[in-house]
């Protein structure tokens, strides 16, 4: 961060310029969707950066009140379209808790394997686009090349490339075959050394480090004040992962570490820390999948819930660790074939709120680095 004094030492009063209001977005290559940031600048220095959202409000909660329990899942997929599997898993878990259904163990295994693969795909996307924001086009190409391999696997199990409708209430919609297990295994063998390669290519690149270190620093207290979660929180050095601390599904049976930022390149909680946490999480996801692949038990892949699901009246809540943070679903049922209300607590909405706090005093170019490191998906911010 460069303050005004360091640019023009001693003479900044004579050089003071008028404030300029700039609209960044809604069409802007580095806002990752249709985010609009209203920036007030003083020369190159950002004075305020207010995110204005709502350009992708797709009425999720209204839809979930008007369709049946199972039909909500396609809409849940479209919330965070880079991590559809994780979203649908969270929603299904909430409905299962209300139904009191025990998910078969085979389904739990498939779910966790697929969710971790989705996490890798999502982080690869973040790696690629963050490289693109910082002016490294190669990272984008490499990230997408490997992501396509995961999408091939997903296409084989669900028939779709991006929005799968695969996680279902009571388990998964379809079963996986031994060929798919083999394909996942060969992908992991291929992908394992790639993470280190990408770290050498981008994360430890001198130019990249200079662009991201000491930029957009979040300290821990700010994290708590803004209720941040996921990589934002872990990047600031706080070890909190729902998979570890409030384990759901079969996460307590697998071994993995929770990577946190350490201020390796500059200050603790800067953009580089958040980037490296994502890269390290990919390695942990590989570890989790490898432990589970060998021991997938036989049995049904879905509990018997019936074609038309009727959920008893009451309330249900679930929270899961998505690639972007804690995703919560709070559901109220009146005993019908559809929900009375579904409230979605989305991590991106809370993560984007901190932009104004981070943007103050930054250069305009650093603001791009900061937005990229938040890794937001506007579909989930606006819902």
């Amino acid at each position: 961060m460069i303050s005004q004094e360091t640019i023009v030492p001693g003479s900044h009063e004579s050089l003071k310029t008028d404030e300029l209001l700039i609209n960044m977005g809604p069409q802007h290559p580095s806002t990752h969707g249709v985010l609009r940031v209203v920036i007030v600048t003083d020369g190159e220095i950002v004075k305020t950066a207010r995110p204005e959202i709502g350009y992708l409000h797709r009425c999720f909660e209204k839809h979930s009140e008007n369709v049946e329990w199972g039909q909500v899942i396609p809409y849940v997929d479209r919330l965070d379209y880079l991590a559809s599997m994780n979203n649908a898993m969270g929603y299904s878990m909430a409905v299962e808790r209300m139904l009191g259904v025990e998910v078969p163990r085979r389904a739990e295994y498939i779910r966790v394997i697929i969710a971790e693969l989705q996490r890798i795909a999502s982080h690869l996307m973040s790696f690629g686009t963050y490289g693109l924001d910082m002016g490294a086009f190669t990272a984008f190409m490499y990230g997408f090349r490997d992501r396509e391999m995961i999408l091939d696997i997903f296409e084989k199990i669900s028939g779709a490339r991006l929005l799968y409708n695969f996680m279902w209430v009571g388990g998964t919609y379809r079963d996986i075959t031994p060929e798919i297990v083999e394909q996942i295994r060969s992908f992991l063998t291929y992908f394992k050394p790639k993470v280190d390669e990408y770290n050498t290519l981008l994360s430890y690149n001198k130019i990249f480090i200079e662009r991201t270190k000491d930029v957009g620093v979040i300290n821990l207290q700010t994290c708590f004040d803004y209720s941040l979660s996921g990589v934002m929180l872990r990047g600031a050095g706080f070890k909190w992962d729902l998979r570890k601390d409030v384990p759901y599904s079969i996460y307590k049976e697998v071994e993995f570490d929770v990577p946190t930022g350490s201020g390796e390149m500059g200050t603790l909680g800067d953009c580089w820390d958040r980037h490296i946490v994502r890269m390290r999480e990919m390695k942990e996801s590989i570890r989790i999948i490898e432990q589970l692949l060998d021991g997938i038990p036989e049995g049904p892949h879905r509990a018997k819930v019936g074609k038309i699901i009727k959920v008893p009246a009451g309330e249900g809540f679930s929270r899961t660790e998505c690639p972007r943070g804690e995703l919560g679903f709070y559901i109220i049922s009146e005993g019908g074939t559809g929900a009375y209300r579904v409230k979605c607590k989305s991590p991106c909405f809370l993560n984007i709120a901190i932009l104004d706090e981070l943007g103050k005093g930054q250069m305009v170019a650093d603001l791009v680095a900061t937005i990229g490191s938040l890794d937001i998906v506007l579909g989930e911010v606006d819902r």
Partner: protein
Amino acid sequence: MLSQDSLVMTSVDEVLSWGRKNSLWPLTFGLACCAIEMMATGAADYDLERFGCGVFRATPRQSDLMIVAGTVTLKMASRIRTLYDQMPDPKWVISMGSCANKGGPYWHEGYHVLKGVDRVIPVDVYVPGCPPRPETLIEAVMMLQKKIRVTQNTLGIFEPRKHA
């Protein structure tokens, strides 16, 4: 056979259309899920640039193709119109995905979703799918290129478009 001093007879229309169809510059304009598939089309595996359509520009003033990729909300509709007006003529629009075509899954209850981007800007090619596969988008681009290929009156002043 053509030799070095051969003459080729053709019309100005033919040459200009041929040039335009092979250098489409799309606008970097992603709205929602379809934008990810649009990016995948431009990235390593599918490589849209093979078809003479891959120089994604960040500003509408340098681009001649708008790929409306994703759900158009009411708040976004007027901005899309502004972006379209900022593009220089001749310009084309591909409506990608069910949402941009007709509202898609948000047709019934989507109180904040525009039911088709063709209500604000004229559309040349519609691509079905939710989201369409990259191959489908490539097919749409090729279809648009066929349309540009037969465009007449390329030098003349363009007739004002009939706006929706």
